[in-house]
C-alpha cells in the first residue's frame, strides 16, 4: 500500500514534469540554464540567472519568430548532476541551447553530451582554457584564466616586482593561472615560487605563513569567485598586508559581488580582469543600473556579464540563423562581435573562445564603495594557451 502510494507519487510527478515539457509548440526555443544555485558556488548561479533574466526583460522573449523559454536548473555544483540535468534538458525538454556551467568540471562533464546531441553549449562562467577544445559545440562568453593572468605577469615585471609567490586553488583554472603567470613572469626575468591550496574548504593560513617566510615582492593569487573574501580576511590576519608584500591577483579575488564587504583591507590590490562594475562606458552604466534595480541593489560581477553576453550571443545567433539551432547556430556565433558592458568583445571563429580587453585595476573607494578602478587596458587579448598552440 505504502509502496504503491510512493510509486503513484513518482508516476504522478513524472507525468506532470513530462507534460510540462510536451505542451510547448515548435515555435519556442528553449534555453537550458544549468547553474550552481545552492552550495558554495551559489553566488555564481545567482548572478548569471539574474543577468540572463535581465537580458530577456530588456530585449523581449521573441527572436526570429521564436519564443525564448529559459529553464533554470540547479546542479549544486556537482558534476554528475550537471551532466544528468543537461541530458534531461536535451532529451525531455528538447532544449536548443544549454548554457551556464559555473565550474570547469561541470562544463567538462557535459561537453561530450553537447557533441553527441549537437546542441550548442554556451559557457558563461567556467574559465579553464581547455574547455572549448572539449567539444566543437562549446562557445564561451566568460574568459580564460591565462587571458587574465598573463597581463598581470607583464604588469608586475614592468613595475619593479622581481620575486613573486603564486597561490592558486588546486584545480583546472588555478593551475592554468599559475602556469600562465609563472611562464610569462620568468620569461620577463622574474623569480616565481608556486603554492596550491585545495579547492574545497580552503584554509589559507599555513600557505600564507609560507608566503610570509619567503618574503616575496608580491603575492599572486587566484581563487574562484566567492572565495576571495575569506582569503582577504586571512591575508590580513596574518599581517601580510603590513609586511610589504604587494597583493596582485586575477579579478576573481576582488569579485565585484563581494568586494564591498571585504572592507579597507582590499584597498590598493592590483588585479587584471575583463570586467569591473566600474568600467567607464555608457553600455556598462546602463547595465549596472538596470541590474541593480532589478536585483535589490546587488552589484553585477563578471559572472553576470558572462551570462548577459551569453544571452546576447544566443539572441544574435538565432537572428542570424533565422531561428535554426544546432551546427548552424554555432557557426553563426563564430566571429560575432559586439560592444558588451565590459567593452568590445569577439568570439574567435577558430577557437570559439572569447577575444576581449583585459584591464589592469586597483581597488579604490568611489562614492563610499569599493570598486576595481581600471587604469590600463590591454586590447583584444586572445586566450594565450590556444594562441600559443596555433603558432
Amino acid at each position, binding site marked *: 500500500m505504502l509502496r504503491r502510494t510512493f510509486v503513484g507519487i513518482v*508516476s504522478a510527478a513524472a507525468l506532470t*514534469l513530462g507534460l510540462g515539457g510536451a505542451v510547448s509548440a515548435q515555435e519556442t526555443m528553449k534555453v537550458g540554464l544549468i547553474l550552481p544555485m545552492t552550495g558554495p558556488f551559489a553566488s555564481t548561479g545567482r548572478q548569471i540567472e539574474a543577468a540572463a533574466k535581465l537580458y530577456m526583460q530588456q530585449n523581449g522573449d521573441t527572436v526570429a519568430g521564436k519564443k525564448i523559454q529559459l529553464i533554470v536548473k540547479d546542479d549544486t555544483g556537482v558534476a*554528475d548532476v550537471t551532466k*544528468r540535468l543537461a541530458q534531461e534538458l536535451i532529451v525531455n525538454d528538447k532544449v536548443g541551447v544549454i548554457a551556464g556551467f559555473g565550474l570547469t568540471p561541470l562544463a567538462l*562533464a557535459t561537453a561530450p553530451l553537447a557533441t553527441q546531441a549537437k546542441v550548442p553549449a554556451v559557457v558563461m562562467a567556467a574559465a579553464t582554457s581547455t574547455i572549448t577544445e*572539449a567539444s566543437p559545440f562549446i562557445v564561451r562568453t566568460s574568459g580564460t584564466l591565462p587571458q587574465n593572468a598573463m597581463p598581470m605577469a607583464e604588469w608586475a615585471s614592468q613595475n619593479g616586482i622581481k620575486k613573486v609567490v603564486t597561490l592558486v586553488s*588546486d584545480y583546472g583554472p588555478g593551475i592554468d593561472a599559475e602556469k600562465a603567470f609563472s611562464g610569462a613572469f620568468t620569461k620577463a626575468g622574474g623569480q616565481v615560487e608556486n603554492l596550491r591550496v585545495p579547492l574545497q574548504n580552503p584554509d589559507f593560513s599555513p600557505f600564507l605563513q609560507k608566503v610570509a617566510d619567503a618574503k616575496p615582492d608580491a603575492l599572486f593569487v587566484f581563487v574562484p569567485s566567492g572565495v576571495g573574501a575569506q582569503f582577504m580576511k586571512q591575508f590580513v590576519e596574518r599581517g601580510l598586508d603590513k609586511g610589504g608584500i604587494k597583493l596582485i591577483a586575477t579579478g576573481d579575488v576582488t569579485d565585484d559581488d563581494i568586494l564591498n564587504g571585504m572592507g579597507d583591507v582590499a584597498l590598493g590590490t592590483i588585479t587584471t580582469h575583463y570586467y569591473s562594475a566600474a568600467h567607464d562606458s555608457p553600455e556598462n552604466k546602463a547595465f549596472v543600473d538596470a541590474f541593480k534595480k532589478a536585483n535589490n541593489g546587488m552589484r553585477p560581477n563578471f559572472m553576470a556579464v558572462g551570462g548577459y553576453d551569453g544571452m546576447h550571443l544566443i539572441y544574435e545567433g538565432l537572428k542570424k540563423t533565422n531561428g535554426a539551432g544546432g551546427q548552424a547556430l554555432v557557426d553563426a556565433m563564430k566571429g560575432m562581435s559586439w560592444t558588451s558592458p565590459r567593452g568590445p568583445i569577439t568570439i574567435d571563429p577558430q577557437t570559439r573562445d572569447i577575444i576581449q580587453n583585459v584591464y589592469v585595476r586597483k581597488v579604490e573607494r568611489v562614492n563610499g564603495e569599493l570598486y576595481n578602478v581600471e587604469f590600463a587596458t590591454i586590447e583584444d587579448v586572445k586566450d594565450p594557451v590556444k594562441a600559443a598552440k596555433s603558432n
Partner: protein
Amino acid sequence: MQDKPFMSSLTTDEVATSLRRKGRWGLGEVLFWLAAAATLFFLPERHLILNEIAIIGLFAVSLDLILGYAGIVSLGHAAFFGVGAYVAGIFAKEMTGDPLTGLAVAGVAAALLGFATSFLVLRGADLTRLMVTLGVALVAGEIANQASWLTGGADGLQGIMMGPLLGMFEFDIFGTTAYAYSLVVLFVLFVVARRIVHSPFGLSLRSIRDNSLRARAVGIPVNRRLVAIYTISAAYAGIAGGLLAQTTQFVSLDVLAFHRSADVLLVLVIGGVGYLYGGLIGAVIFKVLQDILSSMTPQYWQFWIGLILVVLVLAGRERLTERARFLAGRLFGRSAGAPRTAPAREGRP
C-alpha cells in the same frame, strides 16, 4: 519496540520455520518490483533520474546492511562508493570498457578497502565508529584529490568510454540501457541481500546489534561476523559507485564527499532503517522530492527538503509506516500483527 529477543529455548526447527516464513516473498514486494520493472517501459522520459534513484537505492541498501542489521553507524560510507566509482572509471579508461567486468572489479576493490578498514570499526562504540568512518572517507577523498595524474583531481576523471552492455546494448543518451542495467544489478544484489538478512548469519548479526555481549556469550563470533558484513556492505557500495561512474561516464571528487555519506544516511532515515526496502523507498522519495522542488525553486529547494525532513521526523516515520502496514494488512487479509522485520530503533542515529 524491539524484536522478540532471540531465545535460546527455540528449537532449531522453529528457528528454521520462522526464518523461512520471513524469507517468503510477500505480495507487496512482488508488486514493488513489478512497478519498478514497469517504469522501464512506461516512463521513458525519466530514465536518467530513475537510474540515479536505483544507484542511490543500492547504496542505501548497502548502508542498511551494516547500520540496520549489524548496528554499525557510519558517516563515511561514501569512501566505498567513491572507490568503486573511481576504480570502475579508471578501469574503463585504462583496461577495457566492458561494464560487467568493470563493475566486478569495482566491487572487489571496495570490498578490499572495506575488509581492511573493518578492523578499525570493530574498535570502540558508536561515536568512535562515526569518527573512524568519517576519517576513512576524508583520507580517501584527499588521496583522490592529490593523485590527479590518475583521478583527474578536482577537474574530474574524463574520457571514460563504456563498451556496450553484454556486447549488445550501447549506453544511449536517453539513459534507458543505463537504467535497465542499474535496475537489474540492484535487483540481483537486493535478492542476495535479502537472502543474507534472512539467513542464520543475518539473525546472528541482529543479535549482535541488539546485545553484542549476550551474542558473544551464546557463542557467536562477533568480530568475524562484523568484518564479514562490513566487507559485503563495502562491496555493495563499491558496485553502486561503479554503476554511477559507468552510466554517467564521469567521476568527480564529489563521489567521495561528505554529503554523499550524509545523503545516503538521510535516505535511509526517510525510508526506514533495518528494513531493506527502506533504502529503496527512501531513495525514491528523496530524489523525487529533490527533483520536483529544485525545478520549482532552484534557489530555495533545500529549505523545503529540510522542512519536510523535520516534519517527517516529528510526525514519526515509524508511526506512519506502522499505520500503512496495518491498513495493508487489513486490505490483503493478513493479520496486522504479523511478525515485523523492521524493528523500530528510535533514538539511535
